[in-house]
């Protein structure tokens, strides 16, 4: 069995999977696993950012300044929780996953993701952030969908992204805060969403703009609450 990430052969690792003769695809060598920095300790109650990597003066109680700002323009997300810091190692993994299209790498996150989901989002409906058709064609898959699938619960493609999204970075923060309507609701799931507690699934939470926009659409169509889970916290 080789490490999923670095392909290094692992001779020393013998997990429960081996004992039961199960071919465990989660195998990742201890070196790679130690490079993934879990988000832990004190975090922002809203966006799930770790306070430990965050200057003290940008904090207000249990919220970070960004979230205070979101609060002013109408927050659509109850809370976000992320698995890992978006450190250079994870950036590299994500680039291989998304841009090179190495779909298998998603399995690196399976265990931690299931644990986090159980702890924070039990009994919520999963909705992955969609890609435009064009983008999805390029990649061959939607990275958020594969992450949602990993959790092992049914998920609903309740959102659609009709046009190729503009490059986020080109817009000013003010514009991004306007919740530009980049998503639409997939009518098929209108009833499913009504009154439901929804968890949006994505690969990365950076400014929160994408997830806030998605949350707003869901709330507008009758979701009771919306929260989000992501692999990385930028």
């Amino acid at each position: 069995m080789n490490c999923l990430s670095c392909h290094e052969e692992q001779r020393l690792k013998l997990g429960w999977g081996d004992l039961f003769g199960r071919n465990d695809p989660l195998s990742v060598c201890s070196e790679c696993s130690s490079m993934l920095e879990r988000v832990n300790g004190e975090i922002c109650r809203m966006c799930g950012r770790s306070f430990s990597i965050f200057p003290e003066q940008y904090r207000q109680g249990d919220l970070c300044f960004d979230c205070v700002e979101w609060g002013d323009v109408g927050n659509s997300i109850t809370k976000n929780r992320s698995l890992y810091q978006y450190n250079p190692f994870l950036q590299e993994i994500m680039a291989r996953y998304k841009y090179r299209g190495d779909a298998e790498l998603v399995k690196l996150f399976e265990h931690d993701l299931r644990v986090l989901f159980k702890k924070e989002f039990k009994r919520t409906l999963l909705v992955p952030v969609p890609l435009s058709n064009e983008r999805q064609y390029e990649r061959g898959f939607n990275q958020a969908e594969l992450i949602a699938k990993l959790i092992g619960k049914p998920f609903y493609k309740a959102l659609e992204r009709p046009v190729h999204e503009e490059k986020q970075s080109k817009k000013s923060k003010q514009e991004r805060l306007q919740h530009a309507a980049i998503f639409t609701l997939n009518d098929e799931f209108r009833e499913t969403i009504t009154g439901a507690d929804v968890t949006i699934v994505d690969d990365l939470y950076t400014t929160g703009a994408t997830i806030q926009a998605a949350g707003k659409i869901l709330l507008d169509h009758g979701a009771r609450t919306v929260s989000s889970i992501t692999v990385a916290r930028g």
Partner: protein
Amino acid sequence: MGATLVRFASVSSQKGSTLCPEPLVQTSNTSLQSLNLLPEINMFPLDPSFSYNQDLQFHLLGRHLLFDELPFPIEQIHSHYLHGYLLYEKGIATSKNHLSCQRCGNDDPSLFASFACFRCKEDSCVYCRKCIMMGRVSQCTPLIRWTGPVPNVALTSHSFLEWEGTLSELQKQASKQMCGVVGKPKELLVWAVCGAGKTEILFEAIDRALQQGLRVCLASPRTDVITELSPRFERAFPKAGVVSLYGGHSELAAPSPLVLSTTHQLFRFEEAFDVIIVDEVDAFPYSFDPTLQFAVKKAATDQATRIYLSATPSKKMKRRVHTKQLEVIHISRRFHGYPLPVPEFKWCGNWSKLLKKGRIPPIIHKWIDNKLTSGVQSFLFVPTIDDLTTIHSILKEYPGIDSVHASDLDRIEKIRRFRKGEIRMLLTTTILERGVTVPGIDVGVIGADHEVFSSNALVQIAGRVGRSIGDPYGEVVYFHYGKTTAMVSAKREIKSHNQRAGFGTSR
């Protein structure tokens, strides 16, 4: 770029049943399928009246590319297919219980994975993880290759070589012998000792090949070798349009008759070279990785001249030399004319046990003190990362000592500081056994009897010493707790090179 297609329809036409890519299908009642599910892909006879696109020809010639790597409209690519000028091939060959990647040759089941594919709409589209860094090849991905005419390269009588240097007598002989095989379907091993100056020996033979209109590739398993050679070749062959390909620098520019490439980048080529020269044919990962050997084989034509360069050929290769299956050129003398330093064996007691107790064998400790006070720079090789950490922590009081290993992110910086003389002694695992040459250093090996130190590794390690003409001597010590066959055969080999070079049998 980004030609978008992946599914194909099987369409019947006057020419029989034809593949048609998704965007070009006109009727709506044809069923589209993944390339993988279609039967044999038929090939059309070459239509000589078709006016083909020369740019496309240049782009594709000798290569094995994805649609995404071809900056041409899909209509144009497809019409070349219909007229017999190119061929689509399944990127992943699938037969009962067996998968193999047609680009990199990978057939290790653990290096394939699958996903629900948005392109081909299959629930499980298998892709190759081995060569994914060059763009994903999956079951629905066609690889495209040129099947049309090959342009005639005009033979020239003028030389491409503009190199001012001169060769030693020995180098001249080797160069002449090499010129003799160029253009013939032969294999040749150039067995050149560390520091023989093997690059210069290639120039004449490469020039000869270029004059005959042959396409030449020099491949190395290591990126740093390519980046080092690239400016030297550009200077030596300024008019050949030298192209260098390595990770992060793999732009497929204009076709060139002289390509320097890492062995990994060769996956993109097919039957592209008439002369292929593989540097450090014994080096990791080339010797361990059969897919890289596949890449070299695929990139060369059937009739190609294959030249292997090595200071320490593998057992298998040596056997082929002994049984006369492989022609060999020996370059046993270093470019500066001095003999190779012969290693000394020094018994140091149970080094492994002592290290576990946090102690360094006294004789080695003395050696270290000696090096640091005499001002000679040195490499001290240790068997494992654990040993490296132990020794470094014992020696942490000493100024000028640092350590380096394969996954050390500061590796390049530390080597730079060693070259500048800021670091006096570098503790290292076997990663520095080749490649890095610093003038005037001595070398010690702690635990030379450990299994990581193969005979070839020990020869390479000894080869770090005495590299410059200003300081052609130096000391190599193997500290051990019982001589191994590897140590003995390394020493024997070094001595026999010296003997072959005419230095007698003293020492």
